[in-house]
């Protein structure tokens, strides 16, 4: 009996690993098919615009409000730590650099994964459960082109814009707390910020990151939705997986991209 249990658990482990690898392979194949079906999303751009409204415009409020609060907290904590070393003047650089390089893309990406990614997964999953995707195929409409591609590209387009907005709102939040409340000098706040941050590579690195995160989150969302088990429970699991894997993908990619971007600048 114990031997049987051991064999079973080993078997389960192997099956899990094989399934995981097969799923990654299927995701890659899915991504390829998605790209080849993508021209449809741009020919009928109205479909993509509709999805930009649902994943981009409706995420505006949460992104902007979070940005302001993150900026305000950064200013409070940063000013406290910096002024200990007499570097309170660097508050502007500190806040803007952390927002433009890291926090903007990453936090906006995490919010996007939970706000828009989960909605996309649930929508596509439910379409599959209610056989709408199958019905489309019966009518010779390819669901990959009609449903999946517009949602994917809407996410890819929205993500950099949302991340940039997040960073800008964060800078304003820091300005409100740092300059208006704490009383740092407004001139040095903006002046040091401009002197210490370059559009290339600081701001552009952030934009590249948010673009990559947009691809990762959107792909996760549409893939999980498309491969969801066609049951109520299956859709729920798929939605959870989108948030979990989307967030993990963002954090892992962020580390990789940061290592690449710092290569050759003397840090790594």
């Amino acid at each position, binding site marked *: 009996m114990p031997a049987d249990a051991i064999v079973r658990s080993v078997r389960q482990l192997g099956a899990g690993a094989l399934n995981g690898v097969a799923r990654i392979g299927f995701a890659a194949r899915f991504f390829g098919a998605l790209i080849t079906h993508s021209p449809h999303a741009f020919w009928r751009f109205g479909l993509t615009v509709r999805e*930009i409204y649902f994943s981009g*415009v409706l995420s505006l409020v949460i992104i902007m409000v979070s940005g302001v609060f993150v900026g305000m907290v950064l200013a409070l904590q940063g000013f406290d730590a910096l002024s200990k070393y007499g570097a309170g003047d660097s508050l502007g650089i500190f806040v803007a650099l952390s927002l433009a390089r890291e926090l903007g893309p990453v936090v906006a990406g995490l919010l996007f994964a939970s706000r828009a990614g989960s909605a996309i997964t649930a929508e596509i999953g439910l379409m599959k459960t209610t056989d709408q995707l199958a019905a489309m195929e019966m009518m010779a409409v390819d669901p990959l082109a009609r449903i999946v591609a517009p949602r994917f590209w809407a996410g890819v387009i929205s993500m950099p814009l949302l991340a*940039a907005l997040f960073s800008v709102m964060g*800078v304003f939040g820091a300005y409100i707390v740092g300059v208006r409340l704490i009383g740092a000098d407004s001139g040095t706040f903006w002046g040091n910020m*401009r002197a210490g941050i370059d*559009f*290339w590579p600081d*701001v552009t690195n952030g934009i590249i990151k948010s673009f990559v995160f947009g691809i990762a989150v959107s792909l996760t969302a549409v893939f999980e939705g498309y491969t969801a088990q066609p049951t109520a429970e299956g859709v729920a699991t798929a939605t959870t997986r989108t948030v979990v894997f989307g967030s993990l993908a963002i954090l892992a990619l962020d580390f990789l991209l940061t290592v690449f971007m710092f290569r050759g600048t003397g840090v790594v």
Partner: protein
Amino acid sequence: MNRSTLDFWVGIFVLIGIGAIVFLALRVGNLTSLTTTPSYRVEARFENIGGLKLRAPVKAAGVAVGRVDRITLDPKSYDAVVTMRIDKGYEFTKDTIASILTSGLLGEVYIGLSSGGDPQMLVDGGEIKKTQSAVVLEKLISQFLFDKASAPPEVSK
């Protein structure tokens, strides 16, 4: 929601998104580093560059006139070869002295240029002959300590 309202909101979203990127470019960062102002290259050899980094500013009389473009090590003389890009608008004499300086005690490291009186000017690809290496604080301190130790004890009267 009908089509035109949808387009309207998406349009607004895209516009403020692009506005945010422009704000990041102009107000938060300085775009001037992106617009490649016409510049020329000048080389200088230093015994020791200390903490000089790529893209560090090149200043004359405290005014930024260029940036450090490349830092390599000469495999024969073991000198550091620093290539600077200097904006086309500024010209420096051939006997300019380039020195590696630090702004404040802990501030950024930059290259300071001080012009001489030579009538000939540096051209693209030219070399600054007179250089002054970075002052390494540890070396200075150890030198000072060794001097103290090796000096003959003062004779008290």
